[in-house]
């Protein structure tokens, strides 16, 4: 062995020793049974939302309560909306210590992360420590969030179906005495947009940004990839949604609106409409609704907003998985984490503390289950839907008293979308998905906002989708879908 090889071997062994030392620091092993009121265990909880100033203060109070009840304390870490998916992907991939984390269909993708092994399978935990959840939660939630027959997360009890609505800035509806009740399709919006365009040059008639998804009566296999089945399908055939007559018609209408100046010129590159919503310089847009959503929107924008339906209320995979909490696969205390989630979803005291903060500091009671925000609440303003059972939360003074009954009615009336419960396993087509995602990024926003002419761009997009392997993905999805249907007859 020459000298060179020797020093190389030495360097290599040094490298190995160091990596072992480093990894040893990271991996602590399970300690003996703790988790009593005297010796509580700490649960680390990652959830979505703009970090709030008073999180630690509130969690101290929460910990006092939970230590007594189930022997746990809670450390909550909030990560902002835009960063959440990517940060959590990195954290789970590198095996960071997390016990509970927020997951959903639209941020930190639940199905994909579960398939990669980020979450603990909770079938048994749920039976042992989560009876409360099973009692209170609409069974459709747990059923709809199963992956290959197992549960990996606990959906928040909230509205089940998704209903698309047109929202209007009421100020302009009143000013021009517009009739919103006759609006349902995209085309029926035109006379209203026209009025606004002619009379209010400073207002965006139709507030559309790059995330715009026109409503078509199809259920997508993967959000924002153009494969879907028709809502009234009988043969469950997956089609390219860009080839359907409904989509073609909508895209040409959007392009017409764009040329007429109803849509912001920079729509295809605008990340969000938040600035416009703050100033109120918009007339109409589209959103997903829930009962009494008008109240919610009006309160958060500071001016009245009204809405009228744009679709049926349907239960989709993405609406069922809209907000979930999962237990990390490397959690040291999975039982305790499940006990905590059970308490969070059944105990009004805990749930409201997590949601609204400390009574007398952040809010005050104005009735049995009614509360009013105090000034301090600006330091603890949490996204209610993301933190478990919303039906336990106190009502605002402006809410109708029958709010949660209406939610239950809304849930019961929801019709199941065809793909509810089917989750596409993409592991065989990851290469194609990566390529197709690139094509989607190239054409999607420009087409959906009406910025480009669908006559030419639709064909171009379809051609590139084909070249990127969309057909192969669709065939694989069709195969899995057929299998799934055969198994669930």
């Amino acid at each position, binding site marked *: 062995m020459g000298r060179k090889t020797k020093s190389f071997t030495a360097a290599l062994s040094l490298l190995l020793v160091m990596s072992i030392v480093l990894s040893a620091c990271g991996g602590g092993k399970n300690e003996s049974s703790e988790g009593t009121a005297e010796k509580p265990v700490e649960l680390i909880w990652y959830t979505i939302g703009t970090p709030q100033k008073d999180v630690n203060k509130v969690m101290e109070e929460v910990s006092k309560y939970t230590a007594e009840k189930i022997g746990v304390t809670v450390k909550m870490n909030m990560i902002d909306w835009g960063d959440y*998916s990517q940060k959590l992907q990195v954290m789970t991939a590198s*095996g960071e210590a997390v016990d509970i984390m927020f997951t959903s269909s639209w941020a930190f993708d639940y199905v994909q992360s579960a398939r990669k092994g980020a979450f603990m399978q909770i079938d048994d935990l749920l039976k042992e420590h989560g009876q409360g959840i099973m009692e209170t939660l609409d069974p459709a939630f747990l059923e709809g969030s199963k992956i290959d027959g197992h549960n990996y997360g606990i959906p928040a009890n909230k509205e089940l179906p998704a209903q698309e609505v047109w929202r209007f800035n009421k100020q302009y509806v009143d000013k021009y005495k517009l009739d919103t009740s006759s609006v349902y399709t995209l085309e029926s919006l035109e006379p209203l947009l026209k009025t606004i365009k002619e009379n209010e040059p400073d207002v965006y008639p139709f507030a559309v940004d790059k995330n715009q998804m026109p409503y078509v009566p199809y259920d997508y296999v993967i959000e924002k990839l153009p494969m879907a089945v028709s809502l009234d399908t009988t043969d469950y055939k997956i089609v390219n949604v860009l080839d359907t007559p409904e989509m073609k018609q909508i895209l040409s209408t959007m392009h017409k609106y764009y040329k007429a100046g109803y849509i912001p010129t920079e729509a295809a590159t605008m990340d969000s409409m938040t600035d416009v919503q703050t100033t109120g310089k918009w007339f109409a847009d589209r959103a997903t609704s829930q009962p009494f959503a008008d109240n919610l929107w009006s309160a958060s924008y500071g001016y009245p907003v009204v809405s009228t339906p744009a679709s049926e209320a349907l239960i989709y995979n993405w609406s069922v998985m809209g907000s979930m909490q999962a237990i990390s696969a*490397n959690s040291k205390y999975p039982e305790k984490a499940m006990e905590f989630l059970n308490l969070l979803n059944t105990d009004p005291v805990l749930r409201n503390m997590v949601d609204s903060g400390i009574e007398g500091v952040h809010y005050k009671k104005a009735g049995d289950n009614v509360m009013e925000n105090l000034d301090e609440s600006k330091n603890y303003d949490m996204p209610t839907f993301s933190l478990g059972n919303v039906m336990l939360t106190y009502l605002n003074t402006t809410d109708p008293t029958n709010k949660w009954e209406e939610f239950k009615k809304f849930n019961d009336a929801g019709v199941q979308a065809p793909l509810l419960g089917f989750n596409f396993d*993409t592991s065989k087509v990851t290469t194609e*998905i*990566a390529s197709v995602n690139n094509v989607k990024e*190239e054409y999607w926003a420009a087409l959906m906002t009406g910025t480009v002419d669908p006559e030419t761009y639709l064909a171009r997009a379809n051609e590139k989708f084909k070249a990127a*392997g969309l057909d192969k993905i669709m065939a694989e999805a069709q195969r899995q879908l057929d299998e799934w249907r055969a198994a669930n007859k």
Partner: protein
Amino acid sequence: MGAFGRFFKNMNRNAAMLVMVLPATLWFIFFSYLPMAGMIIAFKEYRYSRDGFLASIIESKWVGLQNFKFLFSTNDAYIITRNTVVYNIFFIVLGLVIAVAMAIMLAEITNKRLAKVYQTGMFLPYFLSWVIVGYFVFSFLSLDRGVVNQVAGWFGIDPMNWYSDPTYWPIIIVVVFLWKSVGYNSVIYLAAIMGIDKSLYEAAMIDGANKWQQIRNITLPMLTPLITILTLLAIGKIFYADFGLFYQVPRDSGTLYSVTNVIDTYVYRGLKSTGEIGMSTAAGLYQSLIGFVLVITSNGIVRKFNKDNALF
């Protein structure tokens, strides 16, 4: 005396020097060499294990070159490679010429106070983040409120939708890049010019050389080693694109992808929603491998012509 004995004797003799390089060495070991072991992720289908990161790597199954396939699976592969390399060639060549020219001009300015002002002005954009530069550009090119379209309006030219027409973007990208980076590079060259022995110029003046001859026969030859080194380093990065430049400045506009899509943005767009770590590692490995080969080759070529100018 064995190899080890000699090694320790050497260590002892150079102790002071070795202590000085220790921090940088440690930095390289921890942040450059240790993580290199992670390269094997490129050949695995990465799945999480409950026992932590290392266990995840070990337990994930081998998939051979599967992860590299998405880089070459469509004809986008040609576009992104072309864009990355051609833009970088322009950046390297134009960046070099303009930065050296600026440095020489700055050195020739006799009013030192003014020279400092120019230098600072050119240097400033280097410190701006691409997000901010992106908004600068947007304020020029916005369809209805942009400066360019408004000025064009005065001359009766129809406003142009810059963010959906790829025609002029290759020029915009190059100009924005140069605007941001030339100041920094010219400061490096300026420092080198300041280090040139003044007596060389005096001797040249006595011999009757004019300014242009002085620059051509003294300044440029004295700068050549530095130019070679910086260019070689830049060539090593020719397969890396500046993500911010190609993502933020065109505002991620889909219609511009034919001229703005580069390897880095392609990888980001393909994998941001799926989070396939194996595939992004594969892309990174591919880039560094090509960069490595290019540096070795170009260094070899430089050595052929002039041994002293080569990196190693």
